[in-house]
C-alpha cells in the first residue's frame, strides 16, 4: 500500500484535531448536573472538581495506552500485541491484588509501584516466550498473548475469590472513569511525561523496529532500549489499571490506524498515535455517558465492543492485502 497523498493526509490531520477539540468540549459539558441551569460558582466547581479532571484523565490514559501499545509492538516486532494482549494489564492487576492483600494500608502510589513491578515481570516473560515463535506466523503472537493474559487473569480471579475480594477486582478489571475527581487522578500526569520521552526517542524506536542487528549496526544499545521500553509499557499500564482499571484495545488499534495514514517513521507519526489514543478513549467515554443518560456504561465495556469490531476489521483488511 502507498501512503495516502499529502492533501488527504493534511485534511485527515485537520479533521482529527477539530474532532478531538469537539470531543473535549463534549466531555466537559456532558454529565448528570446541567451546567447551564446551576449558578456560576457551582458550575465552576463541577467543572474544576469533576469534569475537567475526568477529561484530562481520559486524555492521559488514552494517549498513554496508545503509546504503550506502539512501544510493545515495536519491541515484539508484531503489530498485533498491546498491553491488554500480552499480559501487562493482567499482571498489573495481580500486583494491585498482591498489594491489597499483604499491605492493605498501601497508598495509591505504593500500589502503583507494586503493580508496575509485576507488570514489568509479566511483560518481560511474555517477550521472552514469544521469541520462540516463528516470525513467519504473525498471528501466533496475539493468540499466545490472549492465552497468556487469560491465564494470569484466571489466577488473579481465583486468588480474589479465595480472599473474598471479587468486588474489588471488578474495579480494576473493567475500566471506568466515573470515579475520577480532582485529587484522585494526578498520578496520570506521569503518562504525559512518558509520551514526551517516547517522542524524544522516536528515531531510536523506529530503528529498533528494524530489528536488533540494524539497531546495533547503527550504534544503538538495543538491550537498554528494550529495558527502557518495557519499563515505560509497565508504568503506563500499571498507572492506568490502578487509577481507572483495564481499558482494552486502545494500544492495539490506534498504532495500526496511524501506521496506515502516516507511516511508521515515529518522529512524524508518534504524536498522532498519542492524539488518536486520547481521541478514541474520549469518544468512547462520552458515548458511555450518553447512551443510558443519566446512567453510565463503563468505558471498558464500550471500548470492548467498539474495539473488538475495529480490531476484527484491521485483521480482515490485512488478510485481504496479503
Amino acid at each position, binding site marked *: 500500500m502507498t501512503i495516502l497523498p499529502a492533501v488527504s493526509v493534511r485534511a485527515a490531520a485537520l479533521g482529527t484535531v477539530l474532532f478531538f477539540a469537539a470531543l473535549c468540549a463534549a466531555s466537559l459539558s456532558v454529565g448528570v448536573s446541567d451546567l447551564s441551569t446551576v449558578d456560576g460558582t457551582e458550575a465552576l466547581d463541577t467543572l474544576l472538581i469533576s469534569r475537567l479532571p475526568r477529561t484530562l484523565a481520559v486524555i492521559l490514559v488514552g494517549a498513554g495506552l496508545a503509546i504503550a501499545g506502539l512501544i510493545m509492538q515495536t519491541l515484539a516486532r508484531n503489530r498485533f500485541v498491546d498491553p491488554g494482549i500480552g499480559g501487562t494489564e493482567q499482571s498489573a492487576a495481580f500486583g494491585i491484588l498482591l498489594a491489597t492483600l499483604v499491605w492493605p494500608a498501601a497508598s495509591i502510589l505504593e500500589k502503583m509501584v507494586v503493580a508496575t513491578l509485576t507488570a514489568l515481570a509479566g511483560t518481560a516473560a511474555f517477550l521472552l516466550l514469544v521469541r520462540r515463535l516463528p516470525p513467519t506466523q504473525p498471528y501466533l503472537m496475539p493468540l499466545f498473548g490472549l492465552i497468556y493474559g487469560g491465564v494470569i487473569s484466571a489466577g488473579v480471579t481465583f486468588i480474589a475469590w479465595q480472599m473474598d475480594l471479587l468486588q474489588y477486582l471488578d474495579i480494576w478489571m473493567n475500566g471506568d472513569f466515573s470515579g475520577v475527581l480532582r485529587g484522585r487522578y494526578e498520578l496520570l500526569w506521569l503518562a504525559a511525561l512518558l509520551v514526551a520521552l517516547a517522542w524524544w526517542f522516536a528515531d531510536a524506536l523506529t530503528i529498533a523496529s528494524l530489528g536488533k542487528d540494524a539497531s546495533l549496526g*547503527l550504534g544503538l544499545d538495543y538491550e537498554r532500549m528494550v529495558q527502557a521500553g518495557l519499563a515505560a509499557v509497565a508504568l503506563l499500564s500499571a498507572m492506568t489499571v490502578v487509577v481507572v482499571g483495564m481499558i482494552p484495545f486502545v494500544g492495539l488499534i490506534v498504532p495500526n490506524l496511524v*501506521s496506515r495514514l502516516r507511516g*511508521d517513521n515515529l518522529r512524524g507519526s508518534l504524536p498522532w498515535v498519542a492524539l488518536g489514543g486520547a481521541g478514541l478513549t474520549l469518544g468512547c467515554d462520552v458515548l458511555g455517558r450518553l447512551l443510558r443518560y443519566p446512567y453510565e456504561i463503563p468505558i471498558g465495556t464500550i471500548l470492548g465492543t467498539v474495539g473488538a469490531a475495529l480490531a476484527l476489521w484491521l485483521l480482515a483488511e490485512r488478510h485481504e492485502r496479503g
Partner: protein
Amino acid sequence: MIEIEGVSLSHRGTPILHEVSLALPKGELTALIGPNGAGKSSLLSVVARLQPLQSGSVAVDGLPVDRTPSRELARMLTIMRQDTGFAGRLTVRELVGFGRFPHSRGRLTDEDRERIDEALALFDLTALAGRDLGTLSGGQRQRAFVAMAFCQGTDYLLLDEPLNNLDMMYARQMMRLLRKVVDRRGRTVVIVLHDINYAAAYADRIVAMKDGRIVAHGPPNDVLTVGRLEQLYGYRMQVHRIDGRTMIRHHD
C-alpha cells in the same frame, strides 16, 4: 585494517567458527566465499559486534570491537545483514536517512540530506525515494538497504549477500558501484558472495571458508583453482581463463 585473531564461536554447543585469524587491509574489496554453513555470516557478525566475542580478538583500525563504544564503531563500520524481514511503512528516503543516525542522532543536518541524496542517486533509487519499502520488489528493497549502509559513511562496509534478489543488471551494477566505492573513495568492502564468478571478476582478495575455518586466502587467481574449489564445494568445476580473466563453470 581489520585484524581477526583466534576467533572461535559456538552456538548452544555447536561450533561455528574455529580459531579464525585473518587480516584484511584497508582500501580493498574482499569477498567471503564458501558453502552454506561455512561461517561467513557469523564471521561478519562477530567483526561488526552483532555477536558477542567468545574468544580471540577483533580490531578495526586498532580499536577492539568488544570494548569500543558502539556509537563510535557505528561511525567507522557498517553492516548490512541478509533481509531483515522488515516490510513496514517507511519510505526509501526515510530508511536511507537512518544511515545518518550515528552522526546526527536523528536530527538531520543539511550535510546529512546531501549524503542521503547522493546515496539515493548512486543506487538508482531517486525515483523510488518516496515509495514505501513494503511496496518494493525484493531487489529494490535490497538496494535500499545497501544504500542505507553506504549512507552511514563509514570506512568499512560489511555486506552479507548484497546480491540477493538482484537481477543480472543490478547485480553487475552493485558490484561496479562497490568497486567504485573502493577505488575512488578508498573505502574497504567485505562482502559475502555466493556466485564465485562475481568474486573472480570484482574482488581484490578472496577468503574461502568451510566448516568454520579459513581454507584459503589471497588474490582471486590463487584461491580459485580446481583443487581448492573441489575442496570447498565437494565437486569438480572447470576453471577457464578467458581474455585474461578467471571464469568458473560450476554447472554441467
